């Protein structure tokens, strides 16, 4: 037990270092963007009325000072860390002076809610079916699944999502194709609201499951068909252990280890995976926010979204690392 605690502590330090390196990279990425939020704002404001060069110069000076861009980069970097430690990521520049974190927190629940459920669902279904297909290699039904999975997997996700909009929104218009909830219903803890949220999430979630399930299915099938040839499985079969026990207890369990690692990464990757979903289904979330931040040169907001992403991925890896020795006793702690 002590050795496990030591192992966990080491992993925790590693987590901190990864977060540090990742957010520093994000800081640099955000600050080397050639798009200037100051120029973007001047462009919008001065686009509709006549501004003299002098007036533009004074507006630029005002904004530059307001955003703290007049300081050298290393100073901005230090400022960033002193704020970051206090959980403050500074103001958004395209929604000045609203804190960037506030915008992120507004969008985050939608993204995390939709994507977590969809990814976990796809993972569960894909792995169960894939595991069975890997073990019962002669089942026609499971072979059929395999063919479908191979066929669906390479279709660009944008097409899958868009086809669902066309099918269920246009040709057979039964589902809502935009928004997170119905306009008539106010956000509140009511049954109506929960139902409308679920109803609106159904189509985007289905598209994500459809797009994600194939990869898990094929990966698991490959892993399992590899494991079933292992000696211990053959021994178990010879020893007359029930097939169900072999599949669930020995085969799938061992194959799950790499798949769980992959799940952690997939969950971490939701921050970049959500953009197309949001575009196609006009669904609220972080992807749209990120695109707008990048287009507006809002380094503060890009940084906030990126930091949340870095922390989420690093934390997922951390948790998986902690689980790893528990799931696979062959892995030595230490």
């Amino acid at each position: 037990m002590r050795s496990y605690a030591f192992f966990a502590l080491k992993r925790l330090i590693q987590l901190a270092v990864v977060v540090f390196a990742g957010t520093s990279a994000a800081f640099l990425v955000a600050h080397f963007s050639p798009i200037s939020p100051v120029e973007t704002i001047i462009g919008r404001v001065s686009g509709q009325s006549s501004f003299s060069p002098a007036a533009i110069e004074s507006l630029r000076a005002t904004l530059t000072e307001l955003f703290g861009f007049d300081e050298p980069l290393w100073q901005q970097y230090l400022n960033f860390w002193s704020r970051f430690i206090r959980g403050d990521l500074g103001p958004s520049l395209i929604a000045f002076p609203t804190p960037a974190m506030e915008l992120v927190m507004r969008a985050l629940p939608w993204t995390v809610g939709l994507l977590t459920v969809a990814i976990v669902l796809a993972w569960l279904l894909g792995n169960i079916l894939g595991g069975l297909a890997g073990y019962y290699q002669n089942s026609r039904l499971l072979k059929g699944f395999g063919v479908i999975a191979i066929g669906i997997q390479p279709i660009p996700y944008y097409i899958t999502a868009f086809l669902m909009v066309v099918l269920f929104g246009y040709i057979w218009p039964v589902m809502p194709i935009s928004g997170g909830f119905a306009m008539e219903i106010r956000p509140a803890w009511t049954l109506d609201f929960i139902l409308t949220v679920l109803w609106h999430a159904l189509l985007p979630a289905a598209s994500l499951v459809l797009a994600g399930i194939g990869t898990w299915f094929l990966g698991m099938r490959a892993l399992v068909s590899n494991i079933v040839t292992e000696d211990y499985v053959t021994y178990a079969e010879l020893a007359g252990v029930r097939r169900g026990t072999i599949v669930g207890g020995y085969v799938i369990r061992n194959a799950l280890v790499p798949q769980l690692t992959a799940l952690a990464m997939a969950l971490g990757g939701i921050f970049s995976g959500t953009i197309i979903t949001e575009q196609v289904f006009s669904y609220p979330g972080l992807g749209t926010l990120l695109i707008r931040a990048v287009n507006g040169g809002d380094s503060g907001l890009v940084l906030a979204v990126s930091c949340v992403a870095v922390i989420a991925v690093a934390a997922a890896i951390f948790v998986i690392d902690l689980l790893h020795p528990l799931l696979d006793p062959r892995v030595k702690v230490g």
Partner: protein
Amino acid sequence: MRFTALATASSLALAACAGAAIGQEEGAAPPITEFPRDQTLILQNPEPPATNPPNFNIWVAGNGAGWSTGLHQLVMDTLWFIDPDEGLDGPLYNQLAAETWQYNDDFTEMTVDLREGIYWSDGEEFTAEDVVFTVETQMETPGMTWSAAFSDVVETVEAVDDYTVRFTLQEPNSRFHALFSVRWNGAWIMPEHVFSEVEDVMAFQFNPPVGLGPYTLHSFDPNGYWYAWEKREDWDRTALAEWGEPGPQYVIYRSIPTPDNRLIEMANGNLDVIHDLTPEATFSIIEDRETARGWFPGFPYAHPDPTLPMVIFNTQRAPFDDRRVRWALALMLDARAISMASYRGAATLSAIAMPPTGTHPDDYHAPMQDWLIDYELDLGNGETIQPYDPSIGSQIAEMVRPQFGEDVPTEEAAIQRAFGFGWWRQDLEAAATLLEAAGFTEGRGGWMTPEGEPFEFEVNTFTDGVINRMGTMIAQQWTQAGIEVTPVADPQIFASTLPLGDYDVATAWSIETWGGDPDLSYFLDSWHSDFVVEPGERQPARNWQRWSSPALDGIIEEVRTTEFTDPRNLELGRDFVRLMVDEMPVIPMMAYNVFSVYDTEYWEGFPTAEERPYANIVNNWANSKYIFTQLRPAGQTEGD
């Protein structure tokens, strides 16, 4: 077991997230509201979902507040509106002002009489104090939307009495009223009684907004995708009431970023007005849906906005500082192919630097047709040609007739309005003569510059839509004529490329007019040489070509001292057009035709090109507010 645990954990996570989402909402509105379809108008807002949805402070630059969410169409108001089309009662509306502007003799003072009996949506009366506060606050607080514009020209502003405001200007300026005249938007009046209580105007969210328009905020999406507005009970105490009672009880503006989803929503009856579609989708929905139509009843359907897509040369860079090169490039273009490629033929071409829209064809295009036909271009070697071809419009009409049949007009006058009065004839020989006169040589691999380098450059254009298609086609035609030209899809074209002069050639626009008035000051004043900056510095809107000439300055200076309604302005405008033809600092192409589509299943009374062109159907214009007064539920007659 483990699966069950995972499933439980993730559903818990989902519940927690939903809780967080709900936590943000104040929850003042009742849980469910009905928007009865026959009392609700639903429009598309072309802005992306608001970055900062609960912010309605339109006076602060860059705070993430949406503008065309209904906020500036339904709630904001100011002194005058100038319609890009004919208007209900002429293009000029006295809105909060009781009558038009009054200047003193040397244009250093402007006096405004305000309407009486107008009330803010919270019951406070609108007075001269509000106007004074609006101007003074923004002058005192740099970084607000109109701070720089006011600080530049206003000396003092005072309330003579409750209903009279007098502005004293730093310099003579006959167009000061333009700041308060809405063309798309204008300087909106702030509620003094609200903002004077606010400590930090810049950080103030202004939620819910208090306005002078006939609607108030009903509810909005915390994610910024839609805003719902409800008609004020005292709508008759607003300035708009003079033109009638707004029809819809509720108005909803929805942000729908994907064009395909707009089409689907309209097909499903969930959207009454689409701000803009692709040409292809427009043709498709008008064919499929009985009740859907565009501005024109037939081809080309789209509304020509008073904006002029064009080829812009960076005239501070060689060789685009040479008018012979610019003219040569113009003569290499085939306008028919550009019209087909960009608008599938649904473009309204213009050979002159004037959008062929609103009242401009009557003021400029038709009267100047003979001058254009006779126009002679000197090729530099003693030869001259007459480059204008008045038949281009009808040639395009013939090209699209096989596909659209009876929807394509046949009379010459109608063709001219829809497809344009004519354009420059493609003339590669004359172009070659001009380039040779400018020192270029034609080698086997194409044109070489006077310095002996291959003549190659990039064309910055939009990332999609008709302007992108136009830019791609133009680049291709130049390439075929022996110049190596690459189109660049540039997402920052208006934000930084054009203002910072970081380009050789671009397709965008530097000419936007009132549309309903021959006066050109709206864009032309900023073309004065005083505004042209050094290369690398930021050019103020809109002289992106950074071109100046003493003749142009002469015209602008005379406009500045000529009263807005003086017929002399039309003469000056025509002088400007002739100068632009001679110099070709931009190659004018066509009107910016916006494929707005509206559906008459639930609402009738929209403006139409053929019968009642009283307003611009393009609904992100604040000027579109007059449409609401004309709308009636479908199936009812005017008298109901």
